[in-house]
């Protein structure tokens, strides 16, 4: 079993009290931040992050440095927004970072702001993270008092202010353009793109939106260098990743492991396998937005990185690994995920608003044993009609489990419709 020699992101597990500013400083805290502000050109920071190969940890896996380089240099001011809306069922990693290692995250926000020449950054937290927002407010106040945030930092002309902004219970606000609308005091509904946020973000100004975990990587990338970072993980998916393991597993929780660790190692070594002697049946590697993977030997031997997971017909996404055992019926599971997406659809585009509604009714009927195979085919048909037609990823990903579930686990649907078919 691979264990990280040390935690890079969940460093509080190695260093108790890391959520106190003194402890954080004693362990090299803010050194990367001071180094870039006093000694580095912003473009060189972007170059270093590009060289590290860091990819966005929110789900899309887009190269972080490349995203920064898209910021429009003709339109000012610039903004940075940290996406702390963590709401995908099965995802609980950003919460642990912010609760226990908040300064490393905030230093990451600051590094990103310097690289893209932003003097204001917002941290958008889901409304349920009310206590975490208060904690971050206190941390930001400590950083202001210590002179690592605020006006004319370290004797330079660079100033930076951080603010928290609480959402109020809307999964869709994790979608970056809906999040920007929400900060503007509007309904959290996605924008038509392009233009993308690096050209047109909050208040119409160039904005970089990065996930909490992505930003938390930055301080150590700067202080130890891109080459060190690339020595962890795989060639195309470098670095550590926090895998949120949940569902039918003995030891659920967050596990920080190199990208490229296999499903088997995560679920059976770290997670200690399936409870009560039951057998693993399926894996959802990206929360409720996942495709359903058949948990056979090939799947379990697959490395969890951005290139390998698509080869078995799924996506790594935010690496929220939900384990499904053989006591779970797929129609019930699909009704659960679709119920979620129906509740969270923002209502802006018709395919998602109506499609999730009809899929909910169909999955409800089928899971109760009141449906026929015609209903299953109709469900498939409705799901296919959403494909490629939704305004954002919520609608597009709502059908992944439905389509792959029906295709890969047909026996579950035959069993539950058997009575009604006859």
């Amino acid at each position, binding site marked *: 079993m691979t264990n990280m020699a040390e935690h890079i992101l969940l460093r509080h597990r190695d260093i108790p009290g890391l959520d106190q500013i003194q402890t954080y400083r004693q362990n090299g805290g803010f050194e990367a931040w001071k180094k870039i502000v006093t000694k580095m050109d912003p473009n060189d920071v972007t170059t270093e992050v590009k060289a590290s190969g860091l990819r966005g940890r929110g789900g899309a896996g887009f190269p972080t440095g490349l995203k920064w380089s898209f910021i429009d240099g003709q339109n000012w001011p610039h903004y940075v927004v940290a996406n702390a809306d963590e709401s995908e069922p099965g995802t609980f990693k950003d919460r642990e970072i912010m609760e226990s290692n908040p300064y490393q995250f905030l230093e990451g926000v600051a590094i990103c702001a310097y690289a893209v020449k932003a003097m204001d950054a917002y941290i958008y937290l889901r409304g349920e993270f009310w206590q975490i927002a208060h904690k971050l407010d206190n941390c930001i106040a400590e950083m202001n008092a210590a002179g690592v945030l605020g006006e004319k930092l370290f004797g330079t002309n660079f100033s930076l202010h951080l603010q928290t902004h609480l959402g109020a219970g809307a999964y869709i606000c994790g979608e970056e353009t809906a999040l920007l609308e929400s900060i503007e005091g509007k309904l959290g509904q996605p924008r038509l793109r392009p233009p993308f946020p690096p050209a047109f973000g909050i208040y119409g100004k160039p904005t970089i939106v990065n996930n909490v975990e992505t930003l938390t990587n930055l301080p150590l990338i700067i202080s130890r260098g891109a080459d060190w970072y690339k020595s962890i993980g795989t060639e195309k998916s470098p670095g550590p990743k926090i895998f949120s393991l949940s569902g039918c597993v003995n030891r*659920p929780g967050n596990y920080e492991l190199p990208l490229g660790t296999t499903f088997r190692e995560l679920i059976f070594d770290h997670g200690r396998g399936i409870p009560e002697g039951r057998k693993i049946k399926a894996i959802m590697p990206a929360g409720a937005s996942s495709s359903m993977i058949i948990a056979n030997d090939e799947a379990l031997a697959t490395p969890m990185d951005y290139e390998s997971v698509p080869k078995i017909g799924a996506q790594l996404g935010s690496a929220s690994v939900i384990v499904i055992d053989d006591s779970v019926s797929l129609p019930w599971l699909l009704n659960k995920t679709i119920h979620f997406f129906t509740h969270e659809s923002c209502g802006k585009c018709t395919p998602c608003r109506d499609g999730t509604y009809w899929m909910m009714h169909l999955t409800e009927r089928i899971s109760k044993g009141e449906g026929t195979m015609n209903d299953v085919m109709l469900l498939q048909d409705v799901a296919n009609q959403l494909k490629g037609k939704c305004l954002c990823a919520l609608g597009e990903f709502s059908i992944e489990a439905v389509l792959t579930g029906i295709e890969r686990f047909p026996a579950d649907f035959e069993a539950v419709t058997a009575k009604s078919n006859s």
Partner: protein
Amino acid sequence: MNALLEKHADEIQVILAKYPADKAGKRSAVMPLLYLIQHDQGYITKEAIREIAELCEITDTEVASIIGFYSLYYDQPSGKYRVQVCTDLPCALRGAEDFLEKLCENLGIKVGETTPDGIIKVEAVMCLAGCDKAPMFQVQGPEGLEYHENQTVDSALEVINKLRQG
């Protein structure tokens, strides 16, 4: 006269200072202002909607639509405390549905109902990012919002009894 501004002048200044000083920045204050009122009054009254609209320089309808869109804002009074149990997939795989049913049975109410003393409303809600510590719930009340994780029906009843006595 804006009663809201009179009562919470300092807090409102802090909120407005987070955003740009122009008209667009004022609108950004709508969500934190709604929280300010809700923590104070338990829900958002029509009068508060009017006052927030004035402060943010938007219409009453725009404020009301924010309340309608986001699930953590309420325009109706309910139980003093909302006990919100996550029953989404990862929690359901760890027995959250059974937990919720037994909890309600013990309280003598159905999911979505308030106890006869008007203190506790129990609801099923969407994922709260506590999947590895299910069954879990959050409590929304006048003091803010609090998580309770790795719960049993007994431990949850203990939390609820404390809220009732509080």
